[in-house]
């Protein structure tokens, strides 16, 4: 079955994108990534620790770059200037000009500053970046981001790291109907059924970090997420039946032996 996710001309077999934060060890992270079947891995860009502890390992050595595409983010950037600068640093550190663009507007909710996000998207598109903006679940902003040249839009399911699942299913569906670029639900899922719900709503993919990293068994949860995303995608493609108020018998009502 060929059902590839295509973003900016790049094909992905897996529709599950995963992060690299909050894992207990890099070894657990690597095993979880393998179990998830992911081909897209997000990373953050930070200052090198100049006084490392002995034997401190490098994240870079635990990512299979033959199989997985590396997507630097601009997490913790609270203004356009920082986000644009971090995107350029990430591009220089990595091997591509793809960026998961975050311009955060509020520390408590980590909700995006969509005005800054739109501005940063315009700048980075002009600079030749493939921009994947993490955005609010707002259909108007999603359309504006697409118009600004975003290669996908990535609305949140719920606040980052909150594990609440898709809090506003209608908005995800409306965004999917309103834009032509892929819609990746990014942040807020907690468990496999949340990922399935996002996909059933028509999302083209799901990006998550905490739900896998902070599960009691991250490797098992990574596999559950893979299956959840696949199940949701298949259900979406299959087209669900109409929900009804009353029962409709599955077995014939007549012909009962008396």
């Amino acid at each position, binding site marked *: 079955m060929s059902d590839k996710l295509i973003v900016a001309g790049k094909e992905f077999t897996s529709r599950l994108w995963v*992060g*690299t*934060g*909050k*894992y207990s060890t890099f070894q657990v*992270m690597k095993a979880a990534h393998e179990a998830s079947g992911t081909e897209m891995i*997000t*990373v*953050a*860009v*930070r*200052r*090198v620790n*100049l006084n*490392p502890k002995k034997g401190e390992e*490098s*994240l*870079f050595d635990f990512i299979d770059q033959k199989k997985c595409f*590396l997507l*630097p*983010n601009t*997490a913790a950037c609270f203004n356009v200037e920082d986000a644009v600068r971090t995107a*350029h*640093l*990430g591009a*220089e*550190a*990595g091997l591509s000009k793809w960026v998961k663009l975050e311009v955060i507007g509020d520390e408590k909710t980590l909700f995006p500053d969509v005005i800054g996000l739109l501005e940063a998207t315009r700048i980075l598109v002009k600079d030749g970046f493939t921009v994947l903006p993490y955005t609010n679940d707002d259909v108007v902003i999603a359309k504006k981001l697409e118009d600004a040249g975003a290669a996908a839009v990535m609305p949140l399911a719920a606040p*980052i*790291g909150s594990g609440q699942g898709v809090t506003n299913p209608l908005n995800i569906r409306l965004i999917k109907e309103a834009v032509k670029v892929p819609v990746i639900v990014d*942040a807020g899922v907690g468990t496999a059924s949340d990922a399935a719900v996002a996909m059933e709503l028509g999302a083209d993919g799901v*990006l*998550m*970090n*905490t739900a896998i990293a902070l599960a009691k068994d991250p490797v098992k949860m990574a596999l559950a997420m893979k299956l959840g995303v696949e199940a949701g995608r298949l259900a979406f493609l299959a087209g669900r039946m109409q929900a009804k108020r009353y029962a409709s018998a599955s077995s014939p009502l007549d012909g009962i032996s008396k």
Partner: protein
Amino acid sequence: MKLMINGEEKSYSAPLTVMGLVGKHGLKKEGVAVELNKKIVKKVDYENTLLKDGDKVELVHFVGGG
């Protein structure tokens, strides 16, 4: 010479290139980015960019994130 690196003042012996600095901190050039006085240094220029006293350097790499 003294460099302001990642907000910390540190002493290094000259001459030192950007590549030399990256190596001194046990890093390979893959996976890092260097900003010298607020301008990104391209990887092809690491070998031939000499650092001088008072330079402000940002040395970044990838860490875990979502």
